[in-house]
Structures are given as C-alpha cells and as structure tokens.
C-alpha cells in the first residue's frame, strides 16, 4: 500500500452543473462500472424568523479538512467495493439554489454505491471542519449547524 497525500477537495465558489456533467462524462471510459450514485448539497433559501437565507459563506480549516476527507475516502474504499470516489466542497459564497457539495461514487454494483454514498455524506457532515455562515437577504447572518 502506498501512502496517498490528501487531495484538495475545495473549490472556490459554487459547483456548476457543467462541472458535474463533465465529471460523469469522464467515467464513461470505465466500463467495469455498473452504478453511479451522486449526492449534491444545494443551498436552501430557508425562512428563519421572517428572514430569507440568500447565501452561505463557507470557510474551513483547510489542511485539517483535507486530511479528514482523505480519511473518509480511505475508510470508504476499505468498507465498500468502489471503483471511484470524488468529493468536492465549496469555499466562499454559494447562493441559494447553487451547489456546495458534490460526492460521486461508482461501483460495479448498485448495493455498494448506496451504502457508500450515505456513509461518506454523513461522515463529511459530522467530521469535516467546515463552517457555513448563513447570510440573509438583509445582510445579517447566523451560523449554520448541521443536524
């Protein structure tokens, strides 16, 4: 086993649908894959005490977070029969309706992708030192808390 250096999973700003489509396209040469499963986190325009969320601004303890994502990745490859896995997370401002998290897993068979995707997304939410500031339309803000 070789030791892999953590990759950078962070993308400045929102993750575009073109980027996602292109990422799917690149997997069409991998003909051992039978099933892909993709999770997308989209910024929700929640209504909180009469104020609407206009955007979330993400910051992170980047080095630690990249290590966390790396560990999640290694654990998922260990537990599930996966061919590929990709994780991307936004930093900076992501407006309501835009995508801030893109997790993509592929396997010969569908059982593995369902289990792996949920495992990975829950681990990201629980363990990655990423911080979301919900910015309201009136420019006031509150700090998001994952449930």
């Amino acid at each position, binding site marked *: 086993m070789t030791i892999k250096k953590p990759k950078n999973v962070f993308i400045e700003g929102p993750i575009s649908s073109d980027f996602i489509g292109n990422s799917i396209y690149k997997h069409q040469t991998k003909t051992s894959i039978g099933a892909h499963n993709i999770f997308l986190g989209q910024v929700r325009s929640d209504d909180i005490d009469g104020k609407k969320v206009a955007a979330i601004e993400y910051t*992170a*303890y980047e080095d630690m977070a990249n290590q966390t994502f790396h560990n999640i990745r290694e654990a998922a490859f260990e537990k599930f029969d996966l061919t590929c896995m990709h994780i991307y997370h936004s930093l900076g401002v992501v407006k309501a309706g835009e995508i801030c998290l893109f997790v993509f897993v592929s396997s010969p068979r569908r059982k593995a992708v369902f289990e792996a995707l949920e495992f990975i997304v829950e681990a990201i939410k629980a363990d990655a030192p990423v911080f979301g500031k919900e910015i309201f339309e009136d420019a006031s803000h509150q*700090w998001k808390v994952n449930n």
Partner: protein
Amino acid sequence: MLITIKYFGQIAEVTQKNEEQIETSASHISELLDALNQKYKELKNKDFQIAQNQELVATETKLSGAEIALLPPFSGG
C-alpha cells in the same frame, strides 16, 4: 513555548482575528484555554472543540502542538 492559535467561524467573530501567535508556559490545553478565556470574555459562551496539530483533543491533553485551533460546530455540506 510559542504557539499558533487559529480561530474559525463564530469563534473568529469573538476573537476578531483568524490567527495569532502567543508565548505560553501552559502545560495542558486547559491552561491555554484559561488564558484565552481571560483574553476573550465572550469565548465561554461559545461551543467549540479544540484541535492540536489538526487532531481533535480533550482539554486534559498535554500541550505539545505548534498549532492549536478552536473549532465551532461543523456545518459543511
């Protein structure tokens, strides 16, 4: 010992900075925290975890790291 302390999210709002270097004689994380609570009064009302050299640690842990981070509740994704 000279250490770097990093602040994130709502903790950085309290400290009004993202990072600082401090000279400390603290032997455990808890002692360092006492000093920070002195310096930033609002800190004790905040919920956070502590990472030492990018690993989460308990306050009883010995201070050994060059990099300490105060991390509010995670909210990625």
